[in-house]
């Protein structure tokens, strides 16, 4: 409480990074959700975000010589765009207070997302599987950390649809199965996307959403509302979702690849093109940074996560 004198004035210039961060996820979504605005925002990433990506990439490559047991984490472009669009004012020197995630989301519909103060991006952890790519896509998300996240106010599954390459378009017999409009392969007029839970030991799949798979001129993100299933899910288990495609009057199964979903064979899409589960939550109590620090400390204390000398020193 005592006044301090003799402050050492040291001008510290802000880091002036350079770089451009295009948003592959922003290619024109079928739905524009809250975060859609973020994912579709144009313009360069803030210098901090660009530097962050480079840093995380370096960490992933193990070039720092740090803890080798650290799994690689590549922030999804959607999360970086979300941060960029919602934090611009806060990052500006002398800027006004950062808007809540709500402020950006409210304008997009004033829905429950406006209540959120936290947005968590869960990356798809399903292994690539030949069989699943022919009959449907399977997504696996480790949502165990939601146990500490408070109330889930909204959740969406974001899946990238690429414009099908010519070689991926269905053969004539497949086209015939689509009916009289089947020849209009680019349009897929009767194709439907069906999102469901994965069949488990105790219960079968539960249909969560179905929607027409409209024509596709360029890549875009399909966004499904999965709030209910996330809320009802037992968080200690991975959340498994399945996306199938059907077409024609008889609703015959279609390879999702024909609708621009997934990649042929066992190819795994790059991190920024993998499915992302985005959960909007609201803390029940006022949180502070010490909670995050404690959580990180617990994670480091797990077997195989020996702290580096630098970490030990800081701790």
């Amino acid at each position, binding site marked *: *409480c*005592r*006044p*301090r*004198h*003799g*402050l*050492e*004035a*040291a*001008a*510290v210039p*802000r*880091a002036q990074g350079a770089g451009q961060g295009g948003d592959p996820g922003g290619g024109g979504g079928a739905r524009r959700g809250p975060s859609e605005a973020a994912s579709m925002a144009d313009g360069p990433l*803030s210098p*901090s*975000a660009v*530097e*962050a990506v480079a*840093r*995380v990439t370096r*960490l992933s490559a193990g070039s720092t010589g*740090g803890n080798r047991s650290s*799994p690689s*984490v590549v*922030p*999804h472009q959607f*999360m*970086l765009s979300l*941060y960029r669009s*919602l*934090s611009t004012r*806060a*990052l500006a*020197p*002398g800027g*006004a*207070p*950062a808007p*809540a*995630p709500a402020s950006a989301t409210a304008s997009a519909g004033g829905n429950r997302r406006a209540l959120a*103060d*936290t947005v*968590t*991006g*869960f*990356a798809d952890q399903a292994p690539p599987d030949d069989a699943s790519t022919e009959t449907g896509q399977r997504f696996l998300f*480790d949502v*165990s*950390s939601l146990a500490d996240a408070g109330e889930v106010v909204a959740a969406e599954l974001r899946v990238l649809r690429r414009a099908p390459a010519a070689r991926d378009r269905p053969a004539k017999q497949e086209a015939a199965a689509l009916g009289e409009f089947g020849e209009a392969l680019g349009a897929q007029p009767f194709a439907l996307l069906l999102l469901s839970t994965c069949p488990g030991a105790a219960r079968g799949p539960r249909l969560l959403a179905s929607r027409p798979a409209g024509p596709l001129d360029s890549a875009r993100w399909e966004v499904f509302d999965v709030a209910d299933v996330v809320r009802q899910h037992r968080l200690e288990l991975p959340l498994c979702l399945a996306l199938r495609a059907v077409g024609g009057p008889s609703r015959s199964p279609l390879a999702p690849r024909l609708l621009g979903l997934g990649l042929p064979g066992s190819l795994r899409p790059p991190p920024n093109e993998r499915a992302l589960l985005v959960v909007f939550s609201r803390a029940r109590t*006022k*949180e*502070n940074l010490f909670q*995050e620090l404690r*959580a*990180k400390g*617990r*994670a480091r204390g797990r077997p195989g996560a020996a702290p580096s000398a*630098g970490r030990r020193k*800081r701790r």
Partner: protein
Amino acid sequence: TPGAGPGVGARVTGGVGDPGGGSGSPSAGRAPGRRGRSRCGRKPLHVDFKELGWDDWIIAPLDYEAYHCEGVCDFPLRSHLEPTNHAIIQTLMNSMAPEAAPPSCCVPAKLSPISILYIDAGNNVVYKQYEDMVVETCGCR
């Protein structure tokens, strides 16, 4: 400790009182002493998460301006410092009998949040708004 540096992770930039703090005291450069001591106000405090060692879990921002409150709350207190009734009394008591009570404290009166993008314990990327991270105004309490 009076005269001590700001410590690891925090650097003081500039050196002139910030008008955002509303101190209005042109104190920079004055010699120590009653007239030279700056009144309570907002001063720069640049926080560098990298220097704190937090850059292994915070993705962005890597630094931000947090500001801090500094200066004396001596008699008579200015109204823009929005002193509490208790602070007014304590300051008056201090001015009359310094040994009876210290001056009231120059502390943050209003704080604002910042958003942080970080990697949580489960290696998920999280965007979260943290309250009370930036000093907006200082006051005597």
